[in-house]
């Protein structure tokens, strides 16, 4: 009886591995491309996992679909487009740069440039408050600084 329960328990368990051996393509180059593509596609029912890491059935279906397309001779972009067409841009782990996403991608560099400019102005002010010296500003620099400071 105990054995039976044990057996049932183990049968009931869902697969513990993401990529299963029966999915792996014989052609290592194609398989490597499949892994690359899978890492960039989100498992739609999971919480933030890509299909390469997920144990869910739908992730397995997508992995097989990716491999099917690759074997059929699609390029990586064609495979991704094929899947995005069916599931929406939600499946892309790396968001596109199109539309409002430019804010997402541009925020870091823009902030960095702004912060660096602000710091330059601040540092200049701190270093020149020693009084006129060899580090003093030229006329043009001073004018530019005043403009930046809104004087």
């Amino acid at each position: 009886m105990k054995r039976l329960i044990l057996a049932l328990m183990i049968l009931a368990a869902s697969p513990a591995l993401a990529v299963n051996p029966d999915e792996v393509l014989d052609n290592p180059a194609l398989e490597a491309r499949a892994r690359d593509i899978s890492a960039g596609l989100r498992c739609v029912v999971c919480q933030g996992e890509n299909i390469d890491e997920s144990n869910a059935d739908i992730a397995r279906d997508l992995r097989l679909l990716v491999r099917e397309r690759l074997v059929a001779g699609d390029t990586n972009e064609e495979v991704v487009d094929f899947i995005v067409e069916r599931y929406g841009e939600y499946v892309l782990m790396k968001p596109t740069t199109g539309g409002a996403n430019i804010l997402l991608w541009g925020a870091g560099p823009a902030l960095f440039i702004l912060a660096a400019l602000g710091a330059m102005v601040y540092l200049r002010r701190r270093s020149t408050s020693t009084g006129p010296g060899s580090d003093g500003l030229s006329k043009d620099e001073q004018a530019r600084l005043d403009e930046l400071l809104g004087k």
Partner: protein
Amino acid sequence: MIAELGHVALVLAFGVAIVQMVVPFVGAQKGWSGWMAMAVPAASLQFLLIAAAFAALTYSFVTSDFSVRLVTLNSHSAKPMLYKVSGVWGNHEGSMLLWVLIVALFGAMASWFGSGLPPRLKALALSVQAAIGVAFLAFILFTSNPFLRLAQPPFDGQALNPLLQDPGLAFHPPFLYLGYVGLSMAFSFAVAALIEGRVDAAWARWVRPWTLAAWIFLTIGIALGSWWAYYELGWGGFWFWDPVENASFMPWLFAAALLHSAIVVEKREALKSWTILLAILAFGFSLIGTFLVRSGVITSVHAFANDPERGVFILMILGVFTGGALTLYAFRASTMEAKGVFGMVSRESALVFNNILLAVSSIVVFIGTIWPLVAEMFFDRKLSVGAPFFEAAFTPFMVVLAIALPFGALMPWKRAKIGRLMRPLVPALVLAVLVALLAWTMQTERTILGPVGFLLGAWLVGGAATDLWSRLGRGPIGGRLGRMVRLPRADWGRVTAHAGLGVVFMGISGLMAWQIEDIRVAQSAAPFEVADLTVTMNEVRQEQGPNYLTTVADITVRGEDGNVIALLQPEKRVYPVQAMPTTEAAIHNGFWRDIYVVIGDKQDGGGYAVRTFIKPFANWIWAGSLIMALGGLLSLSDRRYRVAAGATRRTAVRGVPAE
């Protein structure tokens, strides 16, 4: 009965916290010393009451009192004792109780060890700290009472999520919370200083150890979480850029920025208003992290305890505290006059650069984390922001940081010359280039990531060694080594932490660039090769654990010479109570590489699915993190803090056993 006592203690703590918030504040405004002094006993009493409530909840868990709703939902009589205890904070209500316990603990410590503080500053800081306590106690009492009873207690509980039944994760939340909440001290002191309108070196000397302690706890907490993910989730990933991970990483980056800028306030009395702003933002991001995790607004792998209705309450707390503090900042920041004067190239400006990199990179993480929400609300787009975005958008800042760090650490205060800095760093640069070349020639695949990561990592470690050497003065080697003993602990701390960062760089890039993976169906006693290893699955058997059933495989790993390197026993467990399977990877830890084996399902044609990984430099990631934390501890034990603030030494010592 015990649970009701806990509830009563919590209500009383709420009352005491209100008194502690109001009375010292009024006292500080009116200059009544008696009212100000009230903060000290109130802080102790508040802590004791919350500790009593926490003890009551722990008692209910340990004795498996299933009439308490929370125990039923999160515990089970067959669970090992360690997980009965960790079940206390492995859920929403309990973790919030742990949160307020730590808020009160930090407040009480400031009151116990803060006798050297100016009375007004101390009263104001404790009042602000109590206000944080009031907000979260109200949150618990009104929305998340852990002591609710069930009318009909069930026969047994529903148990803790099996993934959480793990020693690494049992201690992960307390460390993270000590870190998050530790930043509340910096926040309270920042707001107190804004009300006072005064920031000076003494203030910085007080704030820095708290920030340092919080940063150490966050470092250990994050490392524990990442280590857990590595061995528990079954594919050996160590960081997923999951919203909940980001929630802990953002305050960590801000805390790192704050503890660097506080040095400038302490030593040079400059960057004052910036430091105050950082203190507000660091705790603000702790609150944002709490909001993200607790509201379930962004569900993720970690969102075990989410509840949308509670989100609004935490959002209000977040709004009141950060919004209020930032408003106060807008009015008062101009009163902070900077004194120190320094050149464009100086340690001060290097630390400004450090702050820009850390703050901007943290904001990048923030924007990436909330972008799916923003895109859906405002642009009607359902999209994902995953690891590839963060790798592309965040990493460049860390690369620049790593390049600049050794220069910055060597720069003198006030004024420096780049040319003069370069000369002592030449050996470090040569070392870094040699290491990168070695990595380039030894790797089998031609990746750029590995060699670049090692270049930067070796540059950081070499830079730290140069930094240490340069502190030892001139003269013969014997004299220099002699001076090493007398070097201030703060110098040791800085050097150690920077070297630790270098080790982390090497670990991450090595693991990501050179991992080898093998997936196959393994037949019993049929050896297969993975890179230079020969792996044999000998036997698979079923066993029974305390509260789970398991499939165990005996796997032998041999090297090229045929000698056995490791005997591994990966498991696949099923927890019957939750009908949930988990994988227990078997890992042979090594200095250069880990051998990581996972067993999967029995296959139709016989044999089992087996995944074998070779993970180079994996342990360097956590070793490096611990070295960084150790650096923090060394710095925390510096003489000037022992003299200035005895409190922090205790905080530091608390962290040691769990390492």
